């Protein structure tokens, strides 16, 4: 059963991701009409927003898997948390790059200390520290436990930061996707494009997570073998 699933994930998942991503690129660059108000730069939203949503999903998964790891202590949850953090970090970085590219022509500035932006940046910092902690605290159970502690504490901290930055900076331009009408996605082909992009990035997230998780599993297996060899050598 698990072998069939593994086979499926190894072959079907990348294929589906490829198809969805090609469709998404075609829709965004060829099919969808250019936004009347914002012009060509609005197209970046079809990548930016799904990336942002997948970032939150990934970091949410880190917190959940960290909790399960501390509770159950199985390597599976630790690997899941680790790979989810890696993929989330990639997506979060892309969000922070695509956002300013859009903001420069529309808001007239690369960066403002707006609530959403500040929270995302701090999210990035927390999980950058998470990945550094993983490399600095060595392999094995101890490093995994430390990372899990940070994964949980970080997840609790994010809503608090979010609240405080909302109180802090109230000049908050409406996020386009929540603004119905106006230059929102009221054109049906825009909505369809957005949905295809969401699907494409969901698949990309799943596939990258799978690849990271597999490489982590192989790393662990190799480490186990190495330990066995050392034990065997020392007994002779």
């Amino acid at each position, binding site marked *: 059963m698990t072998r069939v699933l593994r086979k499926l994930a190894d072959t079907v998942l990348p294929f589906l991701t490829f198809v969805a991503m090609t469709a998404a690129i075609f829709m965004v660059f060829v099919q969808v009409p250019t936004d009347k108000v914002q012009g060509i730069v609005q197209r970046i939203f079809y990548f930016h927003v799904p990336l942002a949503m997948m970032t939150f999903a990934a970091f949410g998964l880190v917190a959940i898997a960290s909790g399960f790891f*501390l509770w159950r202590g199985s390597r599976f949850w630790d690997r899941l948390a680790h790979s989810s953090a890696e993929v989330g970090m990639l997506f979060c970085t892309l969000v922070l790059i695509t956002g300013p590219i859009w903001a420069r022509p529309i808001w007239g500035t690369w960066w403002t200390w707006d609530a959403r932006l500040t929270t995302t940046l*701090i999210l990035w*910092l*927390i999980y950058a*520290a998470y990945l*550094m*902690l993983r490399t*600095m*605290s*060595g392999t094995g159970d*101890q490093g995994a*436990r*430390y990372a*899990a*502690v*940070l994964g*949980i*504490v*970080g997840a*609790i*901290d994010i809503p*608090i*930061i979010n*609240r*405080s*930055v909302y*109180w*802090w900076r109230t000049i908050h331009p409406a996020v386009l996707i929540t603004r119905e009408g106006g230059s929102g996605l009221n054109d049906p082909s825009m909505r369809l494009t957005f949905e295809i992009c969401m699907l494409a990035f969901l698949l990309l997230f799943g596939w990258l997570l799978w690849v990271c998780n597999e490489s982590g599993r192989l790393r662990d297996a190799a480490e186990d073998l190495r330990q066995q060899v050392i034990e065997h050598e020392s007994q002779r």
Partner: protein
Amino acid sequence: MWALLRKDLQIEFRTKETLASLLMLGLLTLVILSFAFDPTSELRDEAAPGALWVAVIFAGVLGLNRSFLAERENDCLQGLLLCPVDRGTVYLAKTAGNFLFMMVAQLIIVPIFVFFFNLPATAALGGVFLALLLGVLGFAAVGTLFAAISVRTRAREVMLPLLLLPLVVPIFIGGVKVTARVLAGKPLAEVAQWLNLMGGFDFIFLVVGWLVFEYAVEE
């Protein structure tokens, strides 16, 4: 818990190392920042609260780094963990110790801060201390947890601020806001939501730290 706390206090009373270094670093930060912001200018009211909190955080990180380093250097951590008490209790004792050290340092730093930045307000100091009380408590709560972790990683001096600073952003925002408003002569009622935020932060992270500390110190 009291015995563990008394141990830390006794060590400190005999060497006065942590307090002295906390004080010096806090003062130096204030002096440096007073050059950066020119406290005689109009900017003063804007810059002063930020300067105070940057000093609090710099000195705090230093003190927290020390708090577990001493245990590690002398191999006392093992002994500490062998104590016949819950790990959560060890955490609370350590947090209380760190909180006390930082607060005592603040008692000396704040008057000097008022003096350096030529602040008129003396009536507002109560509000500033209330903010510091809540802020330092939250800082100690998160910091103690991560000091226990970072002390056993490579590059441990760097690791603690990296882990801690992003997490204490709410404390910093709240502290700066309350200090600024209070120094501007506004009543405490106006900053109630910030004080609530800081209090909530303290409570949540004391509970979380108490719960997960055992994973941070286990061998």
